[in-house]
């Protein structure tokens, strides 16, 4: 089984970090992951985008052939990617920044990642809340692998980020199957 995941947001929101965390955790679970990243040539606030190809076996071509999951922290992330989506694409959005049109509502999970990260006194951790929500929703990687990936990437801020991850996981799980 091969999945394509696209993550999109504004420069500074931690989109690339989010994709690396998801990739790292998925690799921990023994899967093959390829991640590519792109960003606009502007300062903070320009677009930032990552693609992940997740598979049981090795993959050569680094671009996802279809987007099974779209995670976006900006309105632009929904607007510009709509043409790449398939009828089954699951969408995960930041509630305060993305307004989801009616036709996409059913397959979209809205998470208040920014608000949650503020409540947990880790306002930089909104992307980690999203990581947790992605895990809870999709179960592409285990909770345990998610924690390990966080510990590797943020050795000095493990607890604050695990708290964000767990709260996000809980939120995502409400909508997961």
């Amino acid at each position, binding site marked *: 089984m091969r999945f394509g995941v696209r993550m999109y947001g504004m420069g500074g929101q931690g989109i690339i970090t989010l994709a690396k965390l998801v*990739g790292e955790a998925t690799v921990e679970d023994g899967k*093959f*992951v*390829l991640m*590519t990243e*792109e960003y606009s040539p502007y300062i903070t606030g320009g677009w930032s985008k990552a693609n992940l190809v997740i598979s049981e076996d090795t993959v*050569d*071509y*680094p671009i996802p052939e279809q987007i099974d999951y779209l995670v976006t922290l900006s309105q632009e992330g929904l607007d510009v990617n709509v043409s790449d989506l398939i009828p089954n694409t699951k969408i995960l959005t930041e509630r305060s920044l993305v307004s989801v049109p009616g036709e996409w509502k059913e397959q979209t999970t809205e998470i208040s990642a920014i608000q949650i990260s503020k409540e947990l006194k880790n306002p930089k951790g909104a992307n980690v809340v999203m990581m947790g929500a992605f895990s809870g929703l999709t179960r592409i990687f285990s909770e345990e692998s998610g924690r390990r990936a966080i510990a590797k990437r943020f050795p000095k801020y493990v607890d604050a980020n695990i708290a964000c991850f767990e709260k996000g996981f809980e939120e995502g799980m409400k909508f997961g199957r």
Partner: protein
Amino acid sequence: MNFLPPGKYFADGNFALTEGAIHAGCRFFAGYPITPSSEVLERMSIRLPEVGGHFIEMEDEIASMAAIIGASNGGSKSMTATSGPGFSLMQENIGLGVITETPTVVLDEMRGGPSTGIPTRVGQGDVMQTRWGSHGDLAPITFAPNSVQESFDLEIEAFNAAETYRQPVIVASDQVIGHLTEILEVKNMEDYHIVQRETRKIRNGNEGVYDYSRDFIPMFEAGTGFRGNVDSLTHDERGYPSNESSVEKEMLEHLLNKVRKNEDKIVKYEEFLVEDSKLVVVAYGITSRSVKQAVKEARKEGLKVGMFRPITLWPFPEKRIRQLAEQSKEFIVPEINYGQYSHSVREYSQTEIKEMHFPPGAVPDYRVILKEIERCLR
């Protein structure tokens, strides 16, 4: 941390290029930040002080190239990292590295051009610049990785080649490989072959700085007692400038032949299903990954197609291309430019060449390449 410990890492190409360089013994980096290679510079600024090396952020790329040539002559394995616009500025001093026989490594991470072009997205438009960019006759060595693993491994090979052939060696990566994150496996340090630099510290009699009768002579190390000239002018074996055509002939033939005579040792390539193929797709860098996928799909349809991937762009894998040209009715050469390497492939093959031009800014879609394979073989 001294060397990156052995193990598996989920890491990107720029991380791998940096750590590969440190494994290879790089202890001096001078550069000027430029997308998409800036992460190499950033990581070097942290890592080199940890291993007893030196890092300088220079005022521009001309000075960066000059600094790494100076550092190498001072006894340090050195490198810089840049992208198209910076690589253009480095050209004159790459020639300085060649004529002074200074080992160093230049990483050029290709993005869309010309000029500033598409700074944050992929291109392969510097390929001929790595061959002919600096004026005069050169015999360049250029490696083109297509994965994170190769970014690490070829960076070590680039340093080894620089030390062995005493000239700047170019690693031509691209934006996608630099920012591609995948598994990197690092072996134990003792499992890597690292060419250590031998230097001459004391001058014996009339011993020259150079020796044109031998392909390889150890460098002398500045500041240790061996007084010698290192000059950008055409020079004799003592290092003294000369205006004579006869001296130019002797020096230049030495500079070219030390690489040309050893091409068989330097040239590297990967072949994928070429044994019985009627059609060969020649591709390097990120494009080769689209091609591999296209070849796999075409094989499922029973089409006899294979891939030839030059790992050293230069020296050109001439012998193997000639052989493949005899068995193959056609070559396809896809590139993220409007036809560069395809000219060299054409030069060495009597077979039909189909160029495929992909504009900078995106990884070539393997389905487009697949269609072209189908068209050629049906």
